[in-house]
């Protein structure tokens, strides 16, 4: 009885707040735009055809590539971090995990504005560099792709560290010892044992970083200005600024499909890994 109640409540919740809104988005994406009531009941495929416009395709590709670079950078930074973390004594490990979580207690928006303050023309970084006489004129750091990537990496790093840490914590130290015993140096141990065995964590972390990186709109908004248009910003613009809800919905659907495909890929790899006995 209690079990049914719980399932019923969660099902109701999911239907009302997840399934229903998504269904609405899907329906709206097939309707036309109307200046007075936002949407008219005039079915069309035009919204999807519009996405094929080179301008929007370019946005799609550039946001995918930015998200990819972000994922790569977080992976490069998070991997050694997680590896060291998983080998620390348990007390230090818990403290370090706490330190990773602490920035979450501050609003991400506030943290992004802080990055802006650092990177801005008269900001902390430029002033420091000028004081040290490394540069004579302030650099244009803000409103570049670099700034956006930095913001994304900074915000999404914990999402990479935590799954990697979870995978590496499970990794038996004896596998590493066995590799060393058989003549593998640090690099070969990393390449042939640690990376393959933490692959599920790498994939999970990559998804957890890549997907939000595609959709996060406030970071490109604040740090990229008008120069960097990512998929998330585009959708936000269509809904809030251009008032073109059907087109925004179509873009949302495309984004959802991309994410769904990636998640399906993840599910498949994890299952094959489980079959091989890695997990």
């Amino acid at each position, binding site marked *: 009885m209690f079990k049914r109640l719980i399932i019923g409540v969660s099902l109701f919740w999911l239907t009302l707040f997840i399934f229903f809104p998504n269904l609405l988005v899907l329906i709206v994406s097939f309707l036309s735009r109307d200046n007075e009531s936002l949407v008219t009941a005039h079915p069309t495929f035009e919204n999807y055809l519009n996405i094929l416009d080179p301008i929007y395709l370019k946005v799609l590709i550039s946001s995918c590539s930015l998200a990819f670079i972000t994922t790569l950078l977080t992976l490069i930074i998070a991997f050694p971090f997680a590896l060291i973390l998983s080998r620390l004594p348990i007390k230090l490990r818990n403290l370090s995990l706490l330190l990773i979580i602490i920035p979450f207690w501050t609003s991400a928006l506030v943290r992004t504005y802080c990055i802006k303050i650092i990177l801005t023309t008269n900001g902390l970084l430029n002033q420091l560099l000028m004081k040290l006489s490394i540069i004579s004129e302030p650099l244009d750091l803000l409103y570049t792709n670099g700034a956006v990537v930095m913001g994304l990496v900074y915000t999404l790093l914990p999402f990479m560290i935590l799954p990697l840490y979870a995978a590496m914590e499970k990794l038996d130290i004896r596998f590493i010892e066995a590799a060393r015993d058989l003549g593998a140096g640090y690099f070969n141990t990393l390449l042939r044992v640690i990376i*393959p065995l933490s692959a599920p964590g790498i994939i999970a972390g990559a998804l957890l970083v890549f997907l939000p990186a595609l959709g996060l709109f406030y970071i490109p908004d604040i740090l990229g200005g008008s120069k960097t248009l990512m998929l998330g910003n585009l959708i936000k613009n269509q809904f809030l600024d251009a008032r073109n809800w059907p087109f925004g919905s179509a873009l949302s659907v495309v984004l959802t499909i991309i994410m769904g495909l990636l998640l399906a890929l993840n599910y498949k790899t994890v299952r094959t890994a489980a079959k091989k006995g890695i997990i």
Partner: protein
Amino acid sequence: MQKIVFFKYFLLLLVCCNNSPIVEYCNKFLDIICYNLYIPLAFLMILAKFLTFEEKVAYNGKYADNNDEGIPKVVELKNISKSFDGFKVLKDFNLTVNNGEFLTLLGPSGCGKTTILRLIAGFETPDAGVIIINGKDITRLPPNKRSVNTVFQSYALFPHMSVFDNAAFGLKMSKTPPNELKERVYEVLSAVKLTEFASRKPAQLSGGQQQRVAVARAIVNKPAVLLLDEPLSALDAKLRYQMQEELKRLQETLKIAFVLVTHDQEEALSISDRVVVINDGVIQQIGSPKQVYEEPKNLFTAQFVGDINIFDAHVVDIDNGVVTADVEGYRCAVDNKREMHIGESFKLLLRPEDMRVAKLSESPDTVGLLVGNVELKTYKGATLDSVIILENGKRVMASEYFDEEDEDFDYHINERVSVGWVKGWEVILENEG
């Protein structure tokens, strides 16, 4: 930590109040510290690695390659000390492994035997002392630079690699050309009878097969010495006996030294050329299985290796070299292997199978024998094991083979019996402490 957090929130409050950019800088700065704690940490770890990472192989001519009997030495541990968290596991430990021998380190758990193995393998560095393999000082050498391989207790087979790749790992690391690699991998796989399983993953193998892969993987590089860390403890009894035989045979064909760690005294006796009995990081006795079992040098070895009866005794009379002693209150003749004097107290050690039990109803003469009541008898198939309580309460274990001529060979519980032993089989130890 909490202070920092509070400090941060205090600052954030200020941000809300006056929007001063300096305060935001401070907040950001704290965030950076929190996030980037790992940079100094990583730096420290790398530094620590560099400090311990000395790959110099110092050949030291002063270490002789042969021991006293002229058999070449493979491994030498000299004055090794090692402690963990202030607890001394090994102190001034010395051990020599001879070429091509099967050496077993036998001891209760926590006696330091696994630490010795890990020191030889290079997973631990001794606090003091020298480790020499084939005449080279390798004390500070990392595990991958040592010609030593290990069979781990839990096997530690790489789960993402096939049996073939597992076995080939060592050869790949030593950059063996592909043709030779394939040949040598199949060579070791056939040595452990696993050729047809080459493409399987470890998860698809039984415990015994995984064990064989672990052995194959460890011997493929032809190490100077193979270390085995309780490799058979996870197998059931029957498979364990089979693997013991196979390990022994493998060791004889490969002619490389095996060092096995075990707490199973039966395994140690049946498999080894030499047994090293260890307790609390101190060698109690080194010797052949026969020596360790039949001539224990101290009470620990006597009690740890097999069952044994220990009697308190003292010398009461010496007449023409015949020593008569008081053993648990009975006057018995004792074989004197060394000089003794009247009044000297000692321990008399006898294995259960050395004991001879006789019914008092059949042979009432008890001169020179112990007398007691049968408390327990256990039918063991090949033997009849009994526990006899002497008049002073001392328990005596006896284990006798069935005599096919005597079909009535059995005792009643509480039957009065005399207990003697085969003359000359007793072991005499001085009182310890």
